[in-house]
């Protein structure tokens, strides 16, 4: 069974601050997805990364896939209260195993 770790588990910041959350595995990912989940709702897909070193941007969110495809980061610039939520990464590995991390719960205070 593959393990997928997210850090930090909780993050509370002020509006306007920047932040980075991480997703790591000891094995090489085939692909990795990031989702955001708001309270009382299902997760919503934000992005998929596939190629080592890949960087994708979605407005103020920047997603990076590690060169070795074992880790990924999500950076938010100038966080807003609307960014509050649970950020989940989900990875699949070469043996077709797929699982979700436990998530980073982000709170952005006005």
């Amino acid at each position, binding site marked *: 069974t593959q393990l997928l770790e997210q850090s930090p*588990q909780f993050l509370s910041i002020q509006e306007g601050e920047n932040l980075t959350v991480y997703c790591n595995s000891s094995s090489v990912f085939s*692909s990795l*997805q990031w*989702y955001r989940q708001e309270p*009382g*709702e*299902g*997760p*919503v*897909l934000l992005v*998929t990364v596939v190629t080592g070193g890949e960087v994708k941007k979605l407005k103020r969110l920047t997603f990076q896939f590690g060169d070795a495809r074992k880790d990924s980061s999500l950076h938010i610039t100038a966080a807003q209260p609307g960014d509050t939520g649970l950020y*989940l990464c*989900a990875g*699949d590995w070469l043996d*077709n195993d*797929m*699982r*979700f*991390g*436990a*998530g980073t719960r982000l709170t952005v205070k006005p």
Partner: protein
Amino acid sequence: DVKVTQSSRYLVKRTGEKVFLECVQDMDHENMFWYRQDPGLGLRLIYFSYDVKMKEKGDIPEGYSVSREKKERFSLILESASTNQTSMYLCASSLPMSGRAYEQYFGPGTRLTVT
């Protein structure tokens, strides 16, 4: 936009009852999934289906069964509900394995309480 709907947002059942959770997707996706989500544990896969009448066990299938009689509908069944099945249940769908199988589209979830 992909739309995945779940039959109930909130459900309260008694121990020993049979519980049906239904999920419908409107994007003709081959794959459908059922997860439960508990604090600190993330999403854990219960069952998934890659075609009508096909099903595969996930990480935690014990105490659950599923049914997929039509492509757009995937049902989760708790044969005899127990208090440790109190959780948020999430349904998802995706395109086939040869495509973007791991890009999943989720329903809003059903918060089930078993008393």
